[in-house]
């Protein structure tokens, strides 16, 4: 039996008319699930429904042995009682509290305060603990938001495009924090993102939400690698650097955690610069797997 069982139906009003959200999803214990999909496909709504911040028209959510939602029996557990950690896209730090107070506010009545010190240490916030959120950079705010979400030691962590507003260098660093926390706190994590590199680095499983439904099989490869009709394998990556290489050029592309060196002609690199997202296509006559 999987740890989390989700069946949700809700009629959303999207930009171009009503969008029926119809989701069936199971999530295993310790899984790091990424939900991707075009904007407006219902990703954030799904997280809000899981958190209990929004009501479903019809549905059922079971977390372990607890039923959080069962519309047929009139069960709808309040967000306060679901024990989840939610990190908002814009962090939602409390402007009137310092970094430390933001974390301490999250403590439940009888909880040991030590967890706050631990999280401040893990997230390297010691020097910032007396600062107010308005004085922090985006990356720093994000670290505070992550730390705050974990104070209550939730078993389920929900991340709503947590890194989308940050630049590439800080993003990579925060991805490491997230992985570290996922393991250290034995979390089950659901990440909403449409950054394939991020998903590839963090997630153990990916599902794509399209038009309010999850249709594709949930294999990372199904989303990350698309095979062209001509049999080419296409991989998405990020240009790290462009070097002269003999007569031509070489482009170093980060694909997942690997750097691939791709030979290129002058005209290929004309409009290319480090940081660009590119698709690298390989002609794969006979792919071989080697251990």
């Amino acid at each position, binding site marked *: 039996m999987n740890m989390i069982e989700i069946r949700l139906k809700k009629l959303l009003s999207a930009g171009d008319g009503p969008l029926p959200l119809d989701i069936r999803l199971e999530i295993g214990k310790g899984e790091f699930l990424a939900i991707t999909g075009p904007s407006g496909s219902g990703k954030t709504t799904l997280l809000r429904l899981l*958190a209990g*911040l929004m009501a479903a028209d019809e549905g059922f959510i079971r977390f372990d042995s607890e039923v959080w939602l069962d519309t047929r029996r009139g069960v709808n557990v*309040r*967000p*306060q*009682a*679901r*024990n*989840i*950690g*939610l990190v*908002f896209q*814009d962090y*939602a*730090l*409390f*402007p*009137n509290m310092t970094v430390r107070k933001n974390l301490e*506010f*999250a403590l*439940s009545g009888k909880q040991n305060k030590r967890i706050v010190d631990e999280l401040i240490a893990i997230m390297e916030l010691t020097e910032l603990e007396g600062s*107010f959120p*308005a*004085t922090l950079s985006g990356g720093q705010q994000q670290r505070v938001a992550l730390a*705050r*979400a974990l*104070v*209550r030691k939730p078993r389920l962590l929900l991340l709503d495009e947590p890194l989308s507003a940050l630049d590439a260098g800080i993003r990579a660093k925060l991805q490491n924090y997230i992985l570290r926390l996922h393991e250290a706190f034995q979390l089950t994590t659901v990440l909403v993102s449409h950054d394939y590199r991020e998903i590839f680095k963090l997630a153990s499983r990916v599902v794509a939400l399209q038009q309010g439904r999850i249709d594709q099989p949930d294999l990372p490869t199904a989303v990350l690698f698309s095979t062209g009709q001509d049999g080419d394998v296409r991989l998405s990556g990020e240009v790290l650097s462009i070097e002269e290489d003999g007569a031509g050029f070489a482009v170093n592309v980060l694909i997942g955690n690997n750097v691939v060196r791709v030979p290129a002609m002058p005209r290929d690199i004309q409009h290319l610069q480090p940081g660009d997202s590119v698709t690298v296509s390989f002609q794969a006559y006979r792919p071989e797997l080697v251990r």
Partner: protein
Amino acid sequence: MEAAFWQTLWLTFKLAAVTTSFLILLGIPVAYLLSRSRSRWKPFLEALISLPLVLPPTVLGFYLLLAFSPEGQFGAWLEQALGLRLVFTFSGLVVGSIFYSLPFMVQPVQSGFENLPRNLSEASYTLGKSHLQTLLHVQIPNIKPALLTGIVLAFAHTVGEFGVILMIGGNIPGQTRVASIAIYDEVEALNYGLANQYALVLVAFAFAILALVYSINRRLLRTGWG
């Protein structure tokens, strides 16, 4: 004369202070509930609260006079059950002023709540905090400028009240005679000098308090506490 002057001013500011205290207790919950409400009755309730903004104060005063009069049922009940007489008394002025200045407290505070990012309260709920805890520790502290605006406007508006007071309070020195009434009274008696004294105090007060609100709000906005 001198003593009467200070007595009248003291009474004016006492009335404003007492009224504002009650309005803080009443206005914040009302503003909070209105900001969260999606009821179809909400526009009617908002209209009811805002009535004193557009009605002549004498209309409000007239109906309060009818309601509070010991000749009437409600007034009689107040007097018998609670020993409370609200016509031509200071308590009556407080009750009348609460109705009269309520929109000045509710409107800024309500829009303060409505403009606060919803994420803040939702983050608090997911951290296990109740609505009350969230209101006290997250929402109210983050609408300080709106709250300050409401408090000051309610206070200043009560100081400037005239019509309602005249209707239900009359002009009893030390009881119901506030500065605005005194000005009217002194002018009637052709005491322009004294009327001018009262008027100058009110002008200076109104200007000082508005300047204070604007400068504090600017400072709060600059430090990112808006």
